[in-house]
């Protein structure tokens, strides 16, 4: 009888332990957010977003950093989206279940576990040196595209797998080809889940620091890549140019890292303010991904 009471008590103790450990995790998250917010809120002004970095902490801003981050995100998306979604479609819909397919899938699972700094070394050797792209936006974007590809491929595969086979059979039955089935039936149905994966992949890319440092992205930069839209003299007319892709860049996390690693206290405040901006972007992306997934989970009933 006493053993039974003992084990019941143990059960209760474990329940309390479980709750307290989870509260601990949430508390850490909360403390982190509050700490950073209190440290950085005094520097969070309009001027902070529109100034270049400076040697004086009070005048330094994140203009080149966030513009660089936007450039890198767009470049990464241009390459990673079609390649990742395309590869996912192939593996799920076209590939025969043979050794080659299995090899490719194991390979993708392995790539998902390679440390990000190794991708930096790959980018340094392949894009910066071998392809001579130098420390450009293009080299950085390509490096991050390779880094997030496994995430996009895996989420595309999962999204397609969730679609019942009957949809495909119905499409074939009315005479559609394989690609027509993919293009008009499967992709629209899987879009919500694929977008969730894409947003998560991009939120990973916006926070990546190590691979971009490794390819040699600059830490102090006081100019912007050439704007993609150039206003001509006859005003409403514009010219588009992607020359900015070949310009050097810095990104938000690198700017934060640069400020954190300086001895002066003033720069710590700047780093905290930069982190608030970065966290806002990451949190918005993640929360919208969670909401999107929730929305699609409830909506589609096969």
């Amino acid at each position: 009888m006493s053993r039974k009471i003992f084990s019941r008590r143990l059960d209760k103790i474990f329940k309390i332990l479980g709750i307290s450990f989870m509260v601990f995790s949430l508390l850490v998250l909360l403390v982190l957010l509050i700490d950073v917010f209190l440290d950085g809120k005094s520097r969070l002004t309009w001027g902070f977003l529109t100034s270049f970095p400076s040697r004086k902490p009070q005048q330094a801003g994140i203009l080149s950093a966030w513009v660089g981050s936007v450039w890198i995100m767009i470049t990464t998306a241009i390459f990673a989206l079609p390649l990742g979604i395309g590869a996912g479609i192939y593996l799920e819909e076209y590939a025969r279940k043979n050794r080659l397919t299995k090899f490719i899938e194991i390979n993708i699972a392995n790539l998902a576990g390679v440390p990000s700094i190794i991708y930096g070394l790959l980018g340094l050797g392949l894009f910066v040196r071998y392809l001579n792209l130098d420390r450009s936006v293009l080299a950085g974007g390509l490096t991050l595209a390779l880094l997030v590809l496994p995430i996009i491929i895996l989420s595309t595969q999962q999204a397609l797998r969730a679609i019942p086979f009957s949809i495909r059979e119905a499409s074939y039955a009315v005479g559609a080809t394989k690609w027509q089935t993919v293009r008009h039936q499967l992709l629209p149905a899987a879009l919500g889940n694929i977008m969730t994966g894409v947003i998560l992949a991009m939120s990973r890319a916006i926070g990546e620091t190590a691979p971009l440092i490794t390819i040699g992205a600059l830490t102090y930069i006081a100019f912007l890549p050439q704007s993609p839209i150039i206003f001509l003299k006859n005003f409403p007319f514009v010219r588009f140019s992607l020359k900015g892709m070949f310009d050097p860049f810095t990104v938000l996390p690198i700017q934060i890292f640069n400020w954190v690693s300086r001895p002066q206290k003033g720069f710590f405040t700047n780093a905290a303010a930069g982190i608030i901006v970065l966290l806002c972007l990451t949190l918005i992306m993640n929360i919208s991904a969670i909401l999107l997934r929730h929305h699609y989970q409830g909506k589609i009933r096969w």
Partner: protein
Amino acid sequence: MLLKRKPILKLKELFIERLLFLFSFLSVFTTLGIIIILLFESFEFFKEVSILKFLTDTQWTPLFINKHFGILPLLCGTFLTTLIAICVALPVGLVSAVYLSEYASLKLRAIVKPIMEILAAIPTVVYGYFALLFVTPLLKKIIPSLSGFNALSSGIVMGIMIIPLISSLSEDAMRSVPMSLREGAYAVGSNRLQVSFRVVFPGALSGIISSIVLAISRAIGETMIVAIAAGQQPKLTLNPFVPIETITAYIVQVSLGDTPYGTLEYRTIFACGMTLFVITFILNTFSFKLKRHFLEAYE
């Protein structure tokens, strides 16, 4: 009309299939690219420094005049921070996983899981800031002899970072243990704790170990936290209170410096990268095999 269009349609279908195949094969090229670049540059490095020296010398001073190229101090730093991280993440992650899988109501799970996901999504540079400017000053109040840069606070923060990885993957493993096993144990009079630890936990063990191995691999490859908060002094020590340097932090240090490309000093980062790649590859493969083994067991 239909007959005329068919060959073109077929050609288009074939073209799309080939193109999509190329996209998926790109991942193989990525792996090959990583291996070729690391091998090529490391080969140049090992022409000048013998592998034996690299693996046994106890000093790492490639940027000094008196050069030593022993990876051991960097490996030691990596090992130390990883060990601290696992000591934090293992109890918290596993208890959370058991709780979420066996105790928590659906409602609580629906709240906690997204928050864990957000914890996992925070950029590592933010964790680095947190380690250097929040955890280290806090720990200094308890341990006055603690250096400004140390393995302890970066290890602890790294542990917090990998909690979601362990808890969510272990929970997935535990949830895939068949309900009939639990019902059998309840039928002979076990309570929830006994079911959790005598039935579900052992049943999901290989899946749980797989998640832990993956977390270790993530901790070994983690860069920004240690680059910011652990210091830049490669030392062969297990003392968590002093500055150390990990493999990843060293690669960042050289990348930020002005070491010219193509020199021996510069090639050290590829030799370090190779070491890192080999270690994480072995761990990832092991984790992957365990997970597959586990999934097959309940099919």
